[in-house]
């Protein structure tokens, strides 16, 4: 009898300990997660309300503000621009990063790797506000650095960069690619450096496969997970893009470079249409959610297996 009681007491003590452990370790994280998802839900609720002035108004209006957005020309310009960002911000960066990382593996000179790493990684530490400031000066059509350099070389520059509505977004994306290239290279490099892959490359080398062939049929198929992570991170960051556009062009000329994120802040804070702004927020979240699903599944498997 006494034995059973002692056992039971021990059991409740163990249970109490594990509950205590659970609280100490995860309570802060859980609290912040609850607040975060709470604000997300709240934002969704605002998007279905009728908040159109400084004072909150939570009258339910259904999908009225989504319809409002879908009838807005600006919204569709934003969607197109965001698509340009998603494709051009990610694809060239990943391709250039794979190429560069492979070139560094093959590099015939010593010391080159740490030089290139420092050289192209430093922008990761800088904010888009600062990169935007310096690049908007580089880009300036009349007094800008690029055109001044071209003029001193005797070239009449045909570029007006971000002042040309037709190509302005591309020049903005270039800043993004410039800033994220170093980040992309080190992620690709680290997925090159697994023992299995090095062995496979060695074997292919012995068999006399050419360098490009090794890259395409040995390396790339075997760094899929690295590419998946990199593509996901770049997709999310190019979807979230706000700072570069806001600093360099403010969405202009006209609305040529406007994206959902800049439209959101103009709608919610300048035009005071909080509900419409919240609706844009929901749309950005849904796109982001779809984009991170593969990444989350991969992370979950990697973490718990």
């Amino acid at each position, binding site marked *: 009898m006494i034995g059973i009681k002692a056992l039971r007491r021990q059991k409740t003590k163990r249970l109490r300990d594990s509950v205590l452990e659970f609280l100490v370790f995860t309570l802060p994280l859980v609290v912040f997660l609850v607040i975060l998802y709470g604000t997300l839900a709240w934002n969704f609720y605002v998007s279905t309300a009728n908040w159109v002035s400084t004072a909150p108004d939570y009258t339910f209006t259904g999908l009225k503000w989504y319809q409002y957005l879908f009838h807005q020309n600006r919204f569709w310009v934003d969607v197109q621009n965001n698509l340009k960002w998603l494709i051009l911000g990610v694809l060239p960066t990943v391709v250039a990063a794979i190429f560069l990382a492979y070139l560094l593996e*093959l590099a015939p000179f010593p010391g080159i790797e740490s030089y290139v790493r420092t050289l192209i990684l430093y922008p990761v530490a800088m904010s888009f506000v600062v*990169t935007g*400031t310096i690049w908007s000066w580089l880009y300036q059509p009349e007094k800008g650095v690029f055109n001044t350099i071209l003029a001193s070389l005797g070239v009449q520059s045909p570029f007006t960069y971000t002042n040309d509505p037709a190509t302005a977004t591309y020049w903005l994306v270039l800043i993004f690619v410039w800033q994220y290239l170093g980040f992309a290279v080190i992620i690709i490099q680290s997925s090159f450096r697994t023992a299995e892959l090095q062995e496979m490359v060695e074997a292919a080398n012995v068999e006399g496969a050419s360098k490009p062939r090794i890259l395409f049929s040995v390396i790339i198929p075997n760094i899929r997970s690295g590419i998946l992570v990199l593509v996901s991170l770049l997709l999310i960051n190019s979807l*979230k893009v706000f700072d570069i556009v806001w600093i360099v062009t403010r969405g202009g000329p006209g609305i040529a470079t406007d994206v959902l994120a800049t439209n959101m802040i103009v709608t919610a804070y300048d035009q005071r249409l909080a509900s419409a702004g919240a609706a844009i927020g929901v749309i950005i979240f849904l796109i982001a959610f779809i984009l991170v699903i593969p990444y989350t599944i991969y992370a979950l498997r990697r973490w718990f297996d």
Partner: protein
Amino acid sequence: MKSRSNTLKLLVIVVLIVLTCAYLLPIYVMITNSLKTLPEIQQRTYLAFPQQAQLKNYTDALFGSRDFLIPMAKPIVNSSIITGVVTLLACFFGGLGGYYLSRVKTTFTRVIFVLVGIALYLPYQAVIIPLTTITAKTGLINSHFGLILCYLIINMPLASVLMGTFFLSFPHELEESAEVDGASKIQIFFRIVVPVSLPAYASVAIIIFTQVWNEFFIALTLITPKTQTVQVAMAMTQGSTISPYNLQMAASLLTVGVPLLCFLFLGRYFIRGVLAGALKG
């Protein structure tokens, strides 16, 4: 065979030259022009060295002058307070949460992990309106706590995952033997795990620090003159066409100074943090 290795060498050299130009030009222009006088800037010889280094530009950018109406000193102090507090708290709480997620594998931790994974790169636009309302209603918006709270909410998932990624690669044997000796998880964490994980904490701290210091969207939205961060001040400098380029560049360098120095001197930790963010601890 010989010619092939020569083409490779040529390719490497070409790529090196292109990269060097592309990545040194902006920072070179920034540094040299931040040290020039206004007449020198107006000559538009942007690639030339300054005739005499104008360190006064930096004091002008810090404390304001007739040409520069947005002194950066106070925003730098604001950003330091906000970023410092957020980094410390996020690392501490993130370490706790990340450790639990990396050691206990139940359905519950899986659910938390998925929620963290989705929150990890949450677009700020999706939560900004409620955050504005919360901080305005509670009055936190008028002090540094408003931004501190928002940044903590947003950066906790990242800090937890980064710390957890490091803990996953940390050998379990030591902890297991301590557990056999009857130590609780909490004791094990603080006495055994934390002391040997200080480099991991350093990496995560640098990542969170850089991220918060460089954040612009939330800082711009929750702006009050008293708590203006360095990025918002910088954006105002850039937006006002009256501030001359030499002072703009000096202000830019002041803005990126701290994270850039972190990167240059603690590059190893920085890179490890970036890789942990890619789930490769």
